[in-house]
């Protein structure tokens, strides 16, 4: 489970059975300082997130378990908003980067 910023939305009318209506969004994984870490990827959204939101996502097979239909070939799903990340040094990533 990793931090990420939602950067965009993607439309795909033809998708594997069971993925109809599941939102697809571009995310940029982040490190502990809120800086981009690694390439952007496309994730399903299990919550009502949108571009600009700070979120967390799960990768691998577990990604499918967050969706209504769990037998689908999905390897990344946004599973929650992040309202605040409180570090020991009191940086709040949600405030700093939005």
């Amino acid at each position, binding site marked *: 489970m990793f931090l990420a910023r939602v950067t965009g939305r993607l439309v795909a009318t033809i998708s594997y059975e069971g993925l109809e209506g599941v939102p697809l969004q571009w995310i940029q994984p982040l490190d502990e300082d809120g800086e981009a870490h690694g390439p952007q990827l496309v994730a399903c959204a299990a919550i009502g997130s949108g571009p600009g939101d700070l979120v967390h996502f799960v990768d691998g097979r577990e990604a499918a378990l967050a969706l209504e239909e769990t037998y689908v070939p999905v390897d990344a799903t946004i599973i929650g908003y992040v309202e605040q990340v*409180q570090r*020991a040094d009191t940086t709040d990533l949600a405030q700093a980067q939005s």
Partner: protein
Amino acid sequence: MILADVIGTVVSPVQIPVLDGRKLLLLKPVSPSGESAGQARIGIDTIGAGVGDRVLVIQEGNSSRQVLDEPQGAVKTVIVGFVDEVEMAGEIVFDHANS
């Protein structure tokens, strides 16, 4: 399992139901001797860990679901223990008492 330092707390107001009521912590993976070792991640706390603790972290879905007793949960990173001491080749490289 991996070793990690707890470096922050994560507040998530809206999330998938399996995470409701669970404490999320920001983790920085570390090598046995404590050097940074990989991308920061978010883990579910099951032991009452806090910022500054060095912890043992499961980074795999099936084991995580067992620990949380959530057979269908979309979970992958779970904190399962405090690290007291790490020994490598007869030498103690991490000692909680002295950290």
